[in-house]
């Protein structure tokens, strides 16, 4: 037996220093080293630049976001008075005399309700057909891309398309018909119908997502109990997907109450709600929403009442925050547990 004592100096990798008397075989150089590929590790200049850029962007995002939120909160507290929520707008050039925005507020709520009432049943039906049936496959794919096209179409295009459609004489029941038969085409109903198209892709999207997360065995269990597909959908799938449907509906409501172009084109230019006579008069009448109120009272519009515009924008922002909060609540609600 022989014992060899070697003393290695501290330092990087002493084992690389080959002792000529060491009987061990020389390790063969790695293929990468043989090919001359550098081993430098750590951070290159590009990496460092990227990292710094990410920090700069992230911090400026935080700053911008904070300043927008704080600015709007400050303006809201400064200009919003509760009586604005209960008085109708008045035509006046003086900011102190042009009333509140009760009508636009009600208009926003009404229009959102109409839009979502159209969008949810249709959207859920389309989503169910796409996920549960989807035959023929070609048609399903066409419908899918159709939904995508609707989602990508600017609301201003939807608005003037809606005007074109609802000004046809047979659409007269939806809005106001002037003497001589010209159909006005502008009303809560017509604007709501077009608003539904904005919300539709959102409803379809989140309903499909919810339906897709339901495992196959749930459906099979229902069939095994002798239920047909239609009642499986109604009794099992739709209740399980209700969180998804609610999320889609809430997101859709957010989009509807924030849209301006459709309101400006399809709801007429009056600030006050002006119902038509007869059954459904309110729905066939014209009015305004918070968005069109803000637009009209900004320096870009006619009124030029920036304080009122700020106050209305703040209320609108509160509605959006509320809807966002609802979405996150739904997200936190316990999803059905499979297995």
């Amino acid at each position, binding site marked *: 037996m022989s*014992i060899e004592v070697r003393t290695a100096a501290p330092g990087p990798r002493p084992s690389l220093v080959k002792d000529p008397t060491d009987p061990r075989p020389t390790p063969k150089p790695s293929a990468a080293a043989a090919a001359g590929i550098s081993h430098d590790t750590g951070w290159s200049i590009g990496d460092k630049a990227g990292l710094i850029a990410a920090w700069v962007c992230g911090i400026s995002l935080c700053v911008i976001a904070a300043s927008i939120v704080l600015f709007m909160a400050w303006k809201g507290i400064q200009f919003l008075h509760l009586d604005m929520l209960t008085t109708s707008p008045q035509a006046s050039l003086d900011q102190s005399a042009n009333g509140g925005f009760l009508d636009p507020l009600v208009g926003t709520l009404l229009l959102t309700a109409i839009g979502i009432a159209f969008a949810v049943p249709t959207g859920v039906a389309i989503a169910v057909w796409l996920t549960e049936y989807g035959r023929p496959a070609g048609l399903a794919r066409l419908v899918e891309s159709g939904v995508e096209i609707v989602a990508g179409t600017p609301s201003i295009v939807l608005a003037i398309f809606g005007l074109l459609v609802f000004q046809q004489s047979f659409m007269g029941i939806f809005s106001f018909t002037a003497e001589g038969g010209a159909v006005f085409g502008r009303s809560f109903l017509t604007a709501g119908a077009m608003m539904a198209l904005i919300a539709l892709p959102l409803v379809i999207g989140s309903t499909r997502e919810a339906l897709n997360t339901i495992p196959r065995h749930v459906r099979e269990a229902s069939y095994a109990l002798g239920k047909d597909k239609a009642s499986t959908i109604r009794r099992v799938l739709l209740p399980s997907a209700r969180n998804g449907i609610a999320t889609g509906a809430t997101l859709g409501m957010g989009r509807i109450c924030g849209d301006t172009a459709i309101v400006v084109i399809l709801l007429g230019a009056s600030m006050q709600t002006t119902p038509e006579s007869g059954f459904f008069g309110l729905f066939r009448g014209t009015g305004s929403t918070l968005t069109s109120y803000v637009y009209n009272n900004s320096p870009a519009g006619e009124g030029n009442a920036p304080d009122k515009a700020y106050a209305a924008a703040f209320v609108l922002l509160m509605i959006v925050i509320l809807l966002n909060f609802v979405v996150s609540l739904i997200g936190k609600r316990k999803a059905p547990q499979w297995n």
Partner: protein
Amino acid sequence: MELTEDHPQDGSAPAAVVPPLRRIVVESETVPIRVGDYAGPPDPNYGRDPWQVGTGTEGEPVWVEERMRTEDLSIAYGDNRAVKDVSIEVNSGEVLALIGPSGCGKTTLLRSLNRLVELTPAAKRTGRIILDNQSVDDFDVTQLRSRVGMLFQQPNPFPMSIFDNVAYGLRERGSKKPRRKILEPVVVDALERAGLWDEVSSNLNHPALALSGGQQQRLCIARSLAVSPEVLLLDEPCSALDPISTSIIEETIVELKSEVAIVIVTHNLQQAARIADRVAFMYLGDLVEQGAAGQVFGAPREERTQDYVGGGFG
């Protein structure tokens, strides 16, 4: 018995402030070389059994050399100590298997060796981990990880082509990206050593995720080998694979051990018996026992080991 002083040969090493490390090499016909802070004959209960790694296939001695060791290593996630005062060595030329029931800290121990455990924010470490006589904390973490490669439980090839997967580590470590022409021999070599070359040589540009599970895992081996690691950590590399893929990977591991020190975490005791030279049994964060595979499985000294191993085998 002969003593030789080995001075630094590059001449550039600064005057040592730290007292020089004494490395003792014990050599005999039956006892293989052992390097480490060690003076005296090999502990018959701890070193390698002669019949395990004493000689190679043609009677030549098989050399083992310490690459890594931990000294009183403890890892805690918050208040929960997952690894308690573990001191263990990782030698080149042999396969070290870490066995033990789930949650005994073996994966944590493994992940601490290349400091991957630091990706878990709550993890805290005490004790030292030494790679080639240097604390791993002294290394740049990226450099450490390129010398201590790792393979995961689930095959995790990137969503790229087969070639790009193997070349990934080489391309993304330096400031300058080597060209494909330079990379090609390295990639081919790595795939050959991982035993995958014959299966993929004609479709290097195909997506890696289209390979089977076993092929994906061997691709991950090739990806690690391409950056020429000195230690390879395997975290239950076969748990997601079928028996045939498992045996191919095991063969690959045994072939690789002459070039790379291998540490494998496994739940499969038969697998440990098949491929490991040395086995360490962990239980609730403690290193209960370590020794040659034949000894741990054949004649465990600790009762806990016996219970676990006995349960596993019979």
